């Protein structure tokens, strides 16, 4: 096979991964899967970077999104009602990609059709489970696609180089970061450091009552709600 054909095949593969990942991210009912699909989408984009001879950028992308998304998924799981999507995937009327990307989330007993506890198969409909703005979102996404495609078609003529860029992209990136863009690079580092200081300050132990203190207060409040509520700090009793 010729190199050009292989390049086209690789491009098609990575582009398909990127698009399928994005579609899965937006349509699956499981928050955890959603994060993993986003990772897959970015891995597809990283493959496109490799095709453009930017291997350092590609692996940076994979590192940022694998490590970063894993931590983000933890927080999503912490704050969402149904992170595994087991309940949402049993909603009636899932169609197309929503149905496909939520396959395998249901409990096995429901798949056979003969459900032995039918009362649980259809959970109470919660308003947070419906997505009334879906049509609007689809139109918005289509418009964004048209705008991006138009930008691509109506672009000014890009300069084409005959020579291949040097293979050692890490070296080039390093030269640029430590030379031409040093002020911006170091400035970003300083900003991140300040952000770390800020978060450490916010999370210092004395800022909020610890969980032990909170439990003590709650126990006391359960025993004698009126007295403690009047005596204690009201902020500490909110939970």
């Amino acid at each position, binding site marked *: 096979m010729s190199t050009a054909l292989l390049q086209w095949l690789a491009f098609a593969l990575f582009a398909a991964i990127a698009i399928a990942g994005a579609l899965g991210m937006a349509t699956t009912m*499981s928050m*955890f*899967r959603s994060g*993993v699909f986003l*990772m897959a989408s970015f891995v597809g984009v990283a493959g496109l970077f490799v095709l453009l001879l930017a*291997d*350092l950028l590609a*692996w940076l992308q*994979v*590192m940022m999104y*694998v*490590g970063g998304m*894993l*931590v983000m*998924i*933890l927080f999503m799981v912490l704050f969402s009602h149904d992170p*595994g999507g*087991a309940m949402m995937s049993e909603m009636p009327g899932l169609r197309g990609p929503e149905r496909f990307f939520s*396959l*395998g*989330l*249901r*409990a096995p007993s429901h798949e056979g059709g003969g459900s032995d506890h039918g009362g649980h198969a259809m959970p109470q409909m919660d308003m947070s489970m419906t997505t009334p703005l879906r049509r609007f979102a689809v139109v918005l996404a289509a418009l964004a696609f048209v705008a991006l495609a138009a930008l691509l078609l109506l672009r000014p003529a890009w300069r084409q180089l005959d020579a291949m860029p040097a*293979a*050692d*992209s*890490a070296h080039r990136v390093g030269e640029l970061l430590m030379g031409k863009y040093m002020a911006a690079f170091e400035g970003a580092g300083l900003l991140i450091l300040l952000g770390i200081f800020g978060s450490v300050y916010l999370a210092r132990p004395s800022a909020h009552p610890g969980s032990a203190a909170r439990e003590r207060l709650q126990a006391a409040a359960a025993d004698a709600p009126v007295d403690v509520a009047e005596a204690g700090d009201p902020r500490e009793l909110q939970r």
Partner: protein
Amino acid sequence: MGVGLAVLWTLLLALAGSALVAAIEPHRLGHGNEPGPAAELRTLPWRRSRRPDRWLHGAAPVVALIALAWAVLILPFGRELIGADLGIGLFYFLVVVDILLLAVALGGWGADTADAVECCYRVIAQLVAYVVPLGLAVIGPAMMARSLSTVDIVEAQARAGLWYVVAQPLGFALFVAAGLMQSYRAPFLEPFAQRLQQAMLASYAPPLRALWRVALSGLLFVVAAMGATLFLGGYAGPWLPGWAWMLLKTLAMIVLMLGLGRCFALRSSAQMLALSWKLLIPLGLLNVLVVGALILLGVGQGAFR
């Protein structure tokens, strides 16, 4: 190497490496077949999941094996005996091993029992603990060799006539500590403590559990081989052929890491995070400073300039 040959080489090396670790390691990770408590745990009804996420659960061991094979790709067993000598090999290695961690997280979440999900949580906490000290430890050899390519780092050590473990003892100690965290071995095996490990691995049918065993044993092999490459001169050495030196040094690293790990009490995830951020990261920054000064003094540069 051609592409097909490289694929074959990585697969064979990954299998051989994990077999080596499994033969040495007395108390194996991923070993869920013992009679007694393990078998008992598996039969308890509440340990079984009612709603596993079958996509993620099934994909996890395959992702783990792919990550292992990718990591093996850049381990040099000779100047030519390497899957692919990437220009950014060292950085690539760090990224690819994170993908193995992703696989563990997928498996833990996919199994959907309380203990398995806890395994997923703790493994991610461990990522936050080890990744920065590890990066600071491996930056030293890259600085001295002026390259991220594993072959170049070995050649630079051979040219200077100096193993980097001599020039950078602090970096080596950091690598051993962070490497033990990265491979979930002795003092840092909280995510794979008996209960959690069995919850995660017991949810797999035996063939898939074997895949996990290969991946988790191979993980120690690739970390030790990377340590041998960065700090012990890799495949360079007199008398013996290159691959034999590399194998011997990797073996020495495995024994050293497992032996040292047993000298310390087990650490919880919280203790690991505290150790990493309060001790290892400052030491790592100090190490980078010291290595920079050494390079300016001409240490480890050999006939390079």
